[in-house]
Structure formats: C-alpha cells, structure tokens
C-alpha cells in the first residue's frame, strides 16, 4: 500500500471516530517513518 492510501485509510478511521487523537499521531508518525525508510533501503 502506498503512502497516499495509508493516510487516506487513517482519515477514514477519523471520519468513523475509530481512532483517538493520540493514536492518530502515533500511526501518522509510523507511516511517515516507513515511507522515509523506503529511501534508506534503496540506499
């Protein structure tokens, strides 16, 4: 799944009130890290 889809999925959770602000922050940070690590692996 690409980063756009991952963030959209997260927004979907917000829309359905399935996620708290704290968990949203954690999940967003993880998504960003995973996306940046892809760079690391290519390297």
């Amino acid at each position: 799944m690409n980063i756009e889809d991952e963030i959209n999925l997260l927004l979907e959770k917000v829309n359905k009130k399935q996620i708290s602000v704290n968990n949203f922050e954690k999940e967003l940070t993880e998504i960003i890290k995973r996306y940046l690590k892809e760079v690391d692996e290519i390297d």
Partner: protein
Amino acid sequence: MKLTEKYLLKIRNIGGIKGSKNFELKMNHLNVLLGQNSKGKSSVAKALMLVNGMDQEIIKGLNQIKVQEANNLGLVLEKGNLRAGIIHAEADFAEVELKNEKILKQIKLKKNGEIEIYNIDNTNFLITSVLTPSSWIFKAVSNPSDIKNESIFSYYISKLNTNIELLKGIEDIFNKNLSVLNQKLIEFKKQKSTIPTIKKELETLEKEIKKLKEERDNYIKSLETNKNNTLKKQIEDLKNKLKNKTDEREEKLKYIQILRKNIEKLKTEIYNNKENINKLEKQRENLINRKKELQKQILSFNREEINSKIEELNKKRYELQGLTNIFYSVLDVLKNENDVLCPVCGIGHINSEITSKNLQNLKNQIENIEMQIRELTNKKLDIEIKEKEEKNIDKQIEDINREINNSIGTINSLELELNSREIDLKNEEEKLNELNDDIFKLENILKENNPEIINKINELSYKIEIKSKEYMEKDSKLKLSGFVEYENIRMDLDIAIKKFEHLIDLIQKSKKKIENIREEAKKKIIDDFNSLISRILSETKLSEFKKIYFDGNYVLNVQYIGLNNQIKTMQPYALSESERVLVSLIFLLVLNKTFANNKSIIIIDNIYEYLDKLRENEVFQFLENYAQSEGVTILITKTDNTDDLIITNWEKR
C-alpha cells in the same frame, strides 16, 4: 414530604446568614424562595451553588472557565478577614449540606482559605445550571463585545459533536508535522546549496596539489649527477626510487588518516553504548526497588478479610435501610399527631418525637457504615492498581534486560572491529616510518651534490602533505553532505528532498479534507443546537420571539416580533432587560438539558426582579412544566414581604 420527594438543605454562616438554617426543596418542581430584600435569599442560592458546583477543579484552579464563573457568582473566599464574603463576617467557617434519599453532598469553607468537599466532583454545574445577572450566560447575551463569554458559547456548542474536538486535534497534529517537515526541508535545501562550493574548493585543491607535485618532480629530475657513467646510472636509480617512495608515502598518509577517523568513530559508538547500559541499569534498579515496595504492600493486604468485612457491612446496611422504611411508614401514620395508638398491636403508643429521633440515629448509623464500606472499597481498588503496576514493572524490566543485552552485543562487535583497526593502524604507521627512513637515506646520498634542491623537494613535500590533508577533510565533508538523517533514518539528500516535498503536499491535502469535514460538522451542530433552542422556545409560548438562533460564527441572533407583527432580526443585546432575561433563561435550559452532567438542580437568582410582572405566571408555569417533564428541581428567588426566608412550591395563581 418523604426524603424520596425532597432535598434537605442545611446552611450555616453563608453570606448574610449567621448560624444554621434548614430548607426543603420539592424535587422535580419549581421552588420559590421568598423573603424581603437583604434577608439572605442570594445567600441560600449561593449555598446551593457551592454544594453542587464547587469541585476540585475550581478549588485547585485547574479549570479557568469554571474558576472565572465561581468568581462572577461571588463564591470565592474573600482575601483577608475584614470584609463579609461568602463566609459570614462574624464566623470563622461556613457549611452547606444537601441530601435526599440517594445523595449527600457537603462543603465546608474556612476563613483561612481551606475548603473541604464531599461528593462534589467533576461538575460543570456553575456553567450550565445557574442564572443570575452575574452569570456568563446573561453577560454573553447582554454584552456582545465580551469575547471570553462568546467563546464559552462556542466551547459548549462544539461539544455537542465529539467529532469536532477529534477533528480539531487531528488538524493540530497535521500542523505540527507540517511545521517539522517544512523546517527540515529548508535545512536539507540549505545543505544541498553548499555542495557546489565544496566541489569547487576540491577542484582547486586538486589542481594545486598536482602543480606542487609537478614542481617537485622537476626538482627531482634536476638533481646534479656525477660525470662518471656508473655513478650516473646509480644516481638515476636513486632519483626514481625517491620519486616512487615519496608518492607511496602520500598514499600511506591518506590511508592512515582514514583509519584514525574510523577508530575515533568506533570509540564514540562504544562509549555511547556503555552510557546507555549505565542508564538502563539505573532504571532497572529503581524498578526493582519499586516492585519490592509494592510486593510488601500487596502481601500485607488480606483480600478475603476485607471482602467479608464489606459483605458484613452491606448486610447490616440493608437491615438498617429496611428499618428506616418502617420508621418512615410510622411517621406517615403519625402525620401531624404527636402520639397515636399503634396500628399493629393496638395496645402500645407511638410518639412522633421519639420516632423521628430514632430514625435520625438509624440514618447516622447507615452513613457511618457507608463511610466504612467506601474506605474498604478504596483500599481494594488501591491494591488492584498496585498489582497492575507490579505486572507492568515485570514487563518493563524484561524490555530493559533485552535492551542491555543488545547493547552488550553491539559493544562486543564494535570492540572486535576496533582491535583490528588499531592493528591495521599500527602496521601502516610502521610501514610509513620505513618509507620515511628510505627517503631520508636517499636524500642524504643526493644531498652531497644538491643540498639546496633537496631542501626545496622537502619543502614541497611538506606543502603537498598539508594540502592533501585539507583535500581529504573537504572530501569527507562532501560525502556527508550527500546524506541527511531524520528520526534515525539515513537518506540520500536528493531523495530526501523529493520525499519531504511529497509528504508536505500529502499532509496539506489531508489537512484540507479534515478542515472541510470540520466545517460541515460545525454547521450541523449549530443546526442541532438551534433546533433545541426552537423546541424550548416553543414550549415557553413566549409570543415576542419568533426564533433564537446561532449563526455560523456562534453569534446569537433573535428574530423579534414587534408592533404590527413586523419581524426584526437583531442580536440580543439590543433587547430590553426583561427580554434579555428571557433569552438567557431559554439558553440556560438548553445548556442544562444538553451538557449538565448532573442536571438535577437549576438555580435562578435575582432574575425575578427583571421580569415583566405580567409575565410572572407565564414564566413560572413554564418552569414548573419544565421541572416536571425533565425531572429537574428549580429554585428561583423572589422578593416578598414574608418575615423570614421560606421556600414554597409554586402554584398557579
């Protein structure tokens, strides 16, 4: 009235009331507190506000909105003992108790500033259940420029949809991320802009070194040789050797510099890992000590004994409660008589005073038992929390041990690498020394005939060495410039810039989506809130208002029906005082219905005086209907000629 139908309010030394006074409020009805001016009506109202609304958040100053409202309503202790405040001027303390069959709330205020409360927790009572001319509601309706009061409107209205707060939180997180990512992107771009300069400097250095080497080679070539052919050949060999050795020494120097850097880096990594282990060991020691302490407390707790005590106390409480019901029935039989024949045995007599006294004793016993049960239950809860903490500590210790082992493994492999690098360095340095000796010998041989040239060659070699070092420093800087680190992730600079730009774009788009959803939700909750206002307004049957509503910016508007049925839309501050009171009253009921976490009591003080006297029946009837249909007990103060303060039930006249 039975305790199931009323609240008992006991007041002592509040405001203008010196000593004790008891009142009864009929539950789920409109109660009118009558009295002459300055007889203490507002003190009774304040007592009721204190015992319902003065929670820890106000006492400890944790919630500014609530603290502000307590100040507005005059519930906060006066500083100094000279002026009369919420505590009577001649008293050292004030007390209020409110109870019915199900609840008991108490508050004690001392002149030294101490406040003790019982059963008054986490309430927004003052904000949602009180209306006086000093309440924020009345101020917000009357004064459009008071932004603080307006913001309480939006605060409460936005609470109608919990998703609004979530969406606001998400927007804040997007903003936080955007700020960090943008800042990093600027840093990356700045780093990128330095690369061409370093490259240019490297090119210049390279040219300079090349030139110096050529110059030195020319000097080596120009070394004078003897005319003797054999010797000439030997000298030529020596010159070649000197050139090769000098080149070799430069390569060696470069390699040694790299090795030294690697060794330094390895040593730093080992040091950091050791520091981390020290830190973790300290954490582990603290956790072990805490665990021992917890275990000691858990072991000393006898759960079975506590459970059986609670069971025993509960049994006793049920028995006593059964008995109180009998006493209530007996008092019902007695009604207004002091002494009657017992209806059960028909022989003995029952006395009203003795029965009431015994009933009070029974209730005191029940209160005492309930207090013991609460204490024991709290002890049980405390131990359960400690057991959870103990389990959590085990998990934390496991994690720490794992981390320590990982760090030890890392240190071992780093130390192995360090050893091998140090051996390499030693070997290379030995080889360099040998080379230096060889060069020295060669130069000595050649020096006899060419002392000045050899000095020149040495001078040039030294210059080359310095420039080469500089070149290597810059080269490693260039290599580092090509990479960046974020959250311990090492990335190629160009790719990082692209990824960060993409991320920023994505987050900005996502933030926009959330903003749109929030705007929609805000519109919906304002609509919902306006429907609630309309519903209450229609129930009041007030003929002068067609509609009271909030616009998209949380500004309150009123559609007023004027002369000739003309409808004017205006903000409520433009209305007359009595009309503003009515708008505030409607707003109070909507807030109370929607947000009060304990919507059992509403207090309306000093408002009657603002009402149009012709409207009294209309308004009071509506409040009575509202109290009955919503299960709310309402107290309204009203100036009257009665000698003493009394609370009566309102009846339509």
